[in-house]
């Protein structure tokens, strides 16, 4: 039987993950608002801004979705004793970390490529 302290920690993770997910969604909303204001003031270049917004919002949205699903499924699973929901909650926690991990691999790879290219261009432009 799990102790009350362990259960409290699990309930806390539900609380904090819900909060983190909602904040990420709120941030996407704010980014939409910023984009609209930028267009109204004509201070943004149209396509680069849309592409940049679309990429960052999609990534944030996916991360927010998984952490929110972890929170809601774990909460419902604990309330109703639904094993399926608990399993889905844990799967979403796994996906949340997987998405961040894969993104980090991608970003590290791109950064490494940029570094290699800048070193190469240095040697090409200055062979001496």
């Amino acid at each position: 039987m799990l102790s009350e302290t362990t259960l409290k920690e699990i309930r806390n993770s539900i609380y904090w993950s819900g909060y983190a997910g909602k904040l990420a969604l709120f941030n996407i909303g704010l980014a939409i608002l910023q984009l609209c204001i930028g267009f109204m003031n004509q201070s943004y270049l149209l396509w680069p801004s849309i592409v940049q917004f679309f990429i960052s919002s999609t990534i944030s949205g996916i991360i927010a979705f998984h952490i929110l699903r972890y929170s809601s499924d774990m909460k419902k699973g604990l309330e109703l004793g639904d094993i399926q929901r608990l399993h889905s909650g844990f799967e979403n926690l796994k996906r949340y970390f997987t998405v961040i991990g894969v993104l980090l691999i991608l970003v590290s790879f791109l950064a490494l490529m940029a570094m290699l290219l800048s070193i190469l261009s240095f040697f090409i432009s200055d062979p001496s």
Partner: protein
Amino acid sequence: MTTGENFFDQFIHSVEGKNPLQTSGRWARFIGVVFIILSLITLLTFILLLVQEDKIAASLMEINRMSNETMLLVRGSGKWVFGLVIITAVSVMVLNAYWLIRFSFSSKNYILKGEEQELQNSFEFLNKYLRITVILGLLSVGVSVIAALFSMTL
């Protein structure tokens, strides 16, 4: 303990519960290690910038046509404000990495030994990581609100 929590007790000791926790732990460890590498690179870049301060200042003056007064400000208080921002960012990254790695090791130990204390620790570290994510999220909201207000005034 409610009926649902009794079910959780069964679930967490089953393969269905342990497998996703194990994978989460592995990814968390990877993320933690990358965070540590990134913070080391950031710190190293900052130190190199400090060492090459004279050369960078000369280039900035040439490229941006900065006045001597502006350059003095950048090299004086500007340098320390920038340093403070870098140190804060590196500290947050290291702290995040530490909690993610601890979460990873505790969940791994729980899966190997089945000790409840390890499960408790893993969720404790996960909560610490989530808490700092929420704080960073709040900061990001603050910055976005300021940016939106600023762009409205343009």
